[in-house]
């Protein structure tokens, strides 16, 4: 039996968590069932806020933007972060310091870096178009054109969050035994073969965790998008989170905003469940094929 006397240690935190995490959730669900606008009386409307979502073209468009943004913001950091981890796993002079520099984008204040990226994206005076002109690529409109705004924002997100993938995969690499590498060397495997057939399968669990975390963060990405484009031009980069902000704190339609918050949360859970399921399937296929 566990002694009950550890409870006093937990109670203060429990009170805080109840107040700032559980209470908001319960209240949000309640609000989502009401017509709740700042400055007008509230009325219970049942699930009509949720029904409204299904025929709200701006919300549906926002879901699409979020999916594209998330897919790119998971895949690119995963690929680049794995490469960076393999490099940082080697021994070289100044590795510790350079790793510190490498993780600076992820620790820096997002709004501050968003500001500088905005300047770099400037079509006439921005340094990015200058760099492109050096290699003969025509000037781009970056975040100022609907067709390029999401890839441009993904560029910032990738720059910012590749380090987290790198750290997680680096942790995985540290746990790999050296024997498989020694035998691969004897067999004369080249670098790519070693990576593909030894390293990659062994770091798969870590890649999965990194992908999951990346997905959760990319779906609810806010600071970068809000500070650089506010969802524009037009609504070309309006993700669910940005739309949620407009509904709740520009139009002060808090009931409808709460419904979006609930659906948004369920969507993240659903995506996580799909990823878990895919991972499970993959493991079973590996076992079945004897890999």
């Amino acid at each position, binding site marked *: 039996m566990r002694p009950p006397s550890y409870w*006093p240690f937990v109670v203060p935190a429990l009170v805080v968590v109840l107040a700032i995490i559980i209470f*908001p959730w319960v209240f949000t669900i309640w*609000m989502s069932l009401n017509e709740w606008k700042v400055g007008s009386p509230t009325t219970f409307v049942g699930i009509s806020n949720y029904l409204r979502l299904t025929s709200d073209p701006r919300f549906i468009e926002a879901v699409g933007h979020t999916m594209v943004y998330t897919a790119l913001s998971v895949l690119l950091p995963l690929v680049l972060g794995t*490469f960076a981890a393999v490099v940082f796993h080697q021994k070289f002079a100044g590795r510790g310091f350079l790793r510190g520099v490498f*993780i600076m984008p992820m620790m820096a204040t997002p709004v*501050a870096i968003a500001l500088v990226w905005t300047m770099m994206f400037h079509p006439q005076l921005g340094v990015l178009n200058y760099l492109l002109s050096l290699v003969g690529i025509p000037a781009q409109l970056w975040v100022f054109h609907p067709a390029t705004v999401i890839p441009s924002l993904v560029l910032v997100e990738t720059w910012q969050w590749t380090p987290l993938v790198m750290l997680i995969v*680096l942790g995985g690499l540290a746990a790999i035994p050296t024997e498989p590498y020694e035998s691969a060397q004897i067999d004369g495997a080249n670098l790519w073969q070693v990576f593909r057939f030894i390293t990659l399968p062994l770091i798969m669990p870590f890649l999965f965790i990194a992908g999951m975390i990346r997905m959760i963060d990319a779906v609810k990405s806010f600071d970068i998008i809000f500070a650089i484009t506010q969802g524009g031009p037009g609504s070309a980069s309006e993700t669910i989170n940005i739309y949620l902000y407009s509904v709740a704190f520009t139009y002060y339609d808090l009931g409808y905003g709460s419904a979006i918050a609930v659906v948004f949360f369920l969507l993240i859970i659903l995506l996580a469940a799909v990823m878990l399921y895919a991972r499970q399937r993959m493991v079973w296929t590996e076992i079945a094929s004897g890999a």
Partner: protein
Amino acid sequence: MTPRQIIGKIGLWLSVFVIVSPAILFFLWMLSLSLKFEIDNAAYPPVFFPERIAWKNYADVLASNRFLTYFVNSLVVTGSATALALIVGVPAGYGIARMAAHKSAIVILIARITPGLSYLIPLFLLFQWLGLLGTLVPQIIIHLVVTVPIVIWIMIGYFETTPLELEEAARIDGATRWQVFRHVALPIAKPGIAVAFILAIIFSWNNFVFGIVLAGRETRTLPVAVYNMISFDQLSWGPLAAAALIVTLPVLLLTVFAQRQIVAGLTAGAVKGG
């Protein structure tokens, strides 16, 4: 060295260069922008090393008395939210680890998944109803959403790795549970507390979304203040970049000097606030 090893070395350094240069070039460019007069910042092709350095950009930002107010606001919000999180979160992490109550971590997970805006809607109404808007209290409370889960999560992990033998010995000597925690467990846990402290500070300092909704003119934190400085028709990039750099400098310094703790914390919990 064989030719093969030399090629390997060159390849390695080339890879290191490719990986690290986006971060280095970005922050150097940020520094360059912040040290140039408008005429250099508006030049095309861009000027990388200005002939005249505009220290004035920094002086202007620091001299405006509003900036000092916002700096103090940031200090108060981040400081209070982190201190409160440590006070409730460290004992909680200890209790949860010793009771092996792993299911309680689900709440932390939910907090981790929930978008920050979801907390804002109900808490905004609550603060309005309590008449707290216009003070720093709402922001301190809502920053707990960021700091408390980080601290609890890291401390659970840390207390699970600290040895039980000392605590049991102290118990046999007649120490109460609180005395065991205070005089045995807590001193051993100092490195873990340092990790939790640093990460809580960084993610609270960086937080933006809570401020744009809850902060008034007098209660802005630095990220919100910087966001409000944007006025692109004036194109005053120098002071803007200087302000951005000042806001994020404490965090960048912390990253360089406490890299070990940050890496340990991020890979253990893979936490991030907001």
